[in-house]
């Protein structure tokens, strides 16, 4: 009843082209932002912020990155983990080479490096497509992983071979390092993710975003409409890798605190891919839904047996979680390739036309 667009007439193209043309959606976003920036910091526990919200936001950002490349530009990538690694190692180098750099700037800057690496590994996409390209991203994954191990300079020749996050402060408040509270880290990360998501939504709605979708849907036609595949594909690689890189830097600096190369391995790439598939390819909202789903599901699964009074091995629930995610991936691919985001859309449509289910929009 409350979700109605009746009476909301658009009198200009500007209004019609707004990101959220329906008033109720704008109110919804406002509520979400209020919850994210005020509600959660005030009411949520450290565990909720530190172990659920922070990883969720990191993965959501990485999923946005992968979704730009795979969902919008149609280039399947299995190298997300490595691109996140480039971001993390760059950020580590920036913060240790120039200790006075503001940490937020260092994080945002680190994405630039992964964007550059992304472009380099995106070059083959000009000659090869589809599954072949997926394999070249696999080459990126393994080659970069090897670099993270073999190039000692990247981790300052630490004996442990791991990158350790140094402590950095902004206005005398610890933002990184062990003494940074989950609330501070959460607020930093949620701000970055909110801004970058807005940027992504803007770019995707405009000329550049459209050129990616053109390449995705019909690359030949796109070229015949004047899109230069070189620019379109490489800009998608760069933009996507930037997001993955920032997500990787945030992952290490705001969440884990230290990382070995395994934090960026192929399984990590798959994890982000699962989020995109289940969340919905070609949807920013889907990235958030998918990330929440994939990150939270195992936590819920772990809680379930004891809730039901069953004594099941921790490992067993792990296996079952794997199976459930696998089944869901296939289920979504068969039933709704646009994932949770599409289900959400359908739900909204139903709500719009309720109680007249056959009044089509």
């Amino acid at each position, binding site marked *: 009843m409350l979700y109605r667009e009746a009476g909301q007439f658009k009198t200009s193209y500007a209004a019609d*082209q707004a990101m959220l043309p329906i008033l109720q959606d704008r109110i919804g976003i406002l509520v979400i932002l209020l919850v994210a920036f005020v509600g959660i910091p005030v009411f949520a526990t450290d565990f909720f912020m530190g172990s659920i919200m922070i990883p969720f936001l990191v993965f959501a950002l990485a999923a946005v990155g992968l979704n730009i490349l795979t969902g919008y530009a149609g280039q399947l990538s299995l190298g997300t983990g490595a691109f996140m690694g480039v971001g993390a190692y760059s950020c580590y180098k920036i913060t240790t080479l120039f200790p006075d750099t503001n940490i937020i700037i260092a994080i945002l800057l680190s994405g630039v490096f992964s964007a550059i690496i992304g472009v380099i590994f995106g070059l083959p996409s000009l000659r090869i497509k589809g599954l072949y390209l997926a394999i070249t991203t696999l080459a990126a994954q393994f080659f970069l992983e090897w670099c993270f191990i073999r190039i000692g300079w990247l981790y300052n020749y630490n004996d442990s071979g791991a990158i350790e996050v140094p402590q950095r402060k902004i206005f005398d408040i610890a933002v990184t390092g062990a003494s940074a509270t989950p609330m501070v880290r959460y607020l930093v990360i949620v701000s970055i993710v909110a801004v970058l998501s807005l940027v992504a939504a803007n770019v995707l709605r*405009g000329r550049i975003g459209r*050129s990616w979708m053109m390449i995705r849907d*019909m690359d030949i036609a796109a070229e015949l409409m004047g899109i230069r595949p070189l620019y379109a594909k490489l800009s998608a690689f760069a933009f996507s890798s930037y997001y993955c890189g920032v997500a990787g830097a945030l992952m290490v600096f705001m969440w884990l605190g230290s990382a070995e190369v395994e934090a960026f391995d192929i399984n990590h790439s798959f994890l982000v891919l699962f989020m995109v598939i289940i969340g919905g390819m070609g949807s920013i909202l889907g990235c958030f839904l998918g990330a929440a789903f994939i990150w939270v599901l195992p936590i819920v699964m772990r809680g379930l047996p004891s809730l039901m009074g069953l004594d099941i091995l921790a490992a067993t629930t792990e296996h079952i979680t794997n199976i459930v995610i696998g089944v869901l991936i296939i289920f979504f691919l068969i039933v709704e390739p646009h994932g949770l985001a599409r289900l959400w859309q359908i739900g909204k449509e139903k709500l719009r036309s309720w109680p007249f289910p056959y009044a089509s929009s």
Partner: protein
Amino acid sequence: MTDISQTADAVESLDTQSDVDAPETLRYTEELLRVDNVSLSFGGVNAITDISFNIMKGEVRAIIGPNGAGKTSMLNVINGFYHPQKGVISFRGKPRRRMKPYKAAASGIARTFQNVALFKGMSTLDNIMSGRSLKMHRGFLWQVINIGPARNEEIEHRKRVEEIIDFLEIAHIRKQPVGKLPYGLQKRVELGRAMAMEPELLLLDEPMAGMNLEEKEDMSRFIIDLNTEFGTTIALIEHDMGVVMDLADRVVVLDYGKKIADGTPKAVQSSQEVIDAYLGVAR
């Protein structure tokens, strides 16, 4: 009878020449596109052999021929998707050998496809907006903040696109994803997308294939209006002879990758070689 054979002879004699002067004095005087002795082959199989013809500015030019005659390959050569092994193509007097499709688009050549090649994941509006890609220039940073120039540009082009939507009478499907539209409408959206590019030369690859009579009439009307009102030069491939006869100023006929006739619809229709080609006379 004599009448027919004479014109047929005229066509024949034309065919043997490599220059492509019009068989009759045309209303059109400026040559827009010129194809000279173009040959294209794929791994030894000849798709197009030594073809020459021209397209005058403002005319409707039809390319016809039986299946596999090389018509679509010809269009692909014109807009740079295939690169011919031999021959030269001149557009607006500028000759070129190899050209990237996006450069052809930039120089003012647009096209539609035999099997609808719309961007299936996008709405009608976005599909037609995509035709404006070449005309939009605001840089990445403006796109990022999406206020000011980038936004104004988007709105300005939206106005043009809405005009096209009105012209093609597809306002009701503006926001629907094109993948689920009926075939006839998809063809219309594709035409709209090509129109949005405001091309000088529009290549239409079987714009009416698979349409019923009513839809064909609509489409013909759009093509005529496009040609007369907007002055767009059109080259089209079509199988429906009735449509070709009504629309085209001149027709070029291909068979087995070779040009077998070129002239007014009437002249071509009566050419013995054309008739043979369509009936499949053994040669």
